[in-house]
């Protein structure tokens, strides 16, 4: 069940929870990720959907948050990481098609692994609970099918 042990997962989860909590206690904001795509697009398109007030109001701190996430992972990589920098061997077409569906789906659902999965469940939202159950079940099913079809890596 846990071939790599449980330690990195528990510590990693605790750090993520502490990061989200710290932002909430200081600013009152829910630090979630997928809205970042829509709010950042508001700089480049005048389409009404992207110019919603809540997107314009949050677009600058969401960029700041994303920058922090990138740098935080970089700091881990140059300090504690046993193997240093990492490059995935997952094929480019999987990243491209998968990424498109992730961007489309998370915005249609108004949440992702962090939005529905962390902040939504933490807010005891049944909407997020249904969303999480759906993306977990479909994600597991899809990954299993690709594995069965012999698509590796």
């Amino acid at each position, binding site marked *: 069940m846990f071939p790599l042990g449980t330690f990195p997962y528990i510590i990693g989860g605790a750090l993520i929870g502490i990061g989200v909590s710290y932002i909430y206690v200081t600013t009152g904001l829910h630090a979630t990720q997928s809205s970042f795509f829509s709010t950042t697009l508001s700089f480049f398109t005048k389409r009404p959907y992207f110019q919603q007030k809540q997107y314009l109001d949050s677009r600058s701190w969401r960029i700041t948050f994303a920058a922090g996430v990138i740098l935080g992972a970089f700091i881990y*990589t140059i300090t504690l990481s046993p193997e240093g920098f*990492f490059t995935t061997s997952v094929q480019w077409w999987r990243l*491209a098609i998968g990424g498109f569906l992730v961007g489309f789906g998370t915005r249609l659902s108004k949440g992702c692994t962090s939005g529905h999965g962390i902040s939504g469940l933490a807010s005891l939202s049944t909407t997020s609970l249904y969303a999480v159950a759906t993306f977990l079940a479909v994600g597991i099913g899809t990954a299993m099918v690709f594995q069965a079809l012999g698509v590796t890596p």
Partner: protein
Amino acid sequence: MRTKHFFVFTGGLLFGFGLAFGGMAKQEVVLSFLQLRDLGLLLLLGGSALVTALTINLVPKLLKKPLLGGEFKKRKRTLNKNTIIGAAIFGVGWGISGQCPGSAMASIGVGNIPILIGIASMFLGAYIMGRFFA
């Protein structure tokens, strides 16, 4: 304003550090979770939700407002068919590629250059959704 950005940024550092520490910045780790070969990410997701749940539900009872002022925002989402259809489409993308929005950002920080293809595609997907389906 600057102070708000400081706290959002330093919280983001913890978030990204935790994602990388927990292995989620590696698409291979995510895929091995979704193939049920290593259930560790369940601990990471559950642990982070638990810590956040304690904060979101207890702190507003102890403090009237956030330390920097303003208000504790409520996260409002109403269940409709798009919640579920969107989550299912996201699930397909997650299962194909092992990427989600937060872990993809962290993956830039671990030096994973190919993830930029995935992030560009996420922007495209978010654009098509907002342009034609919202």
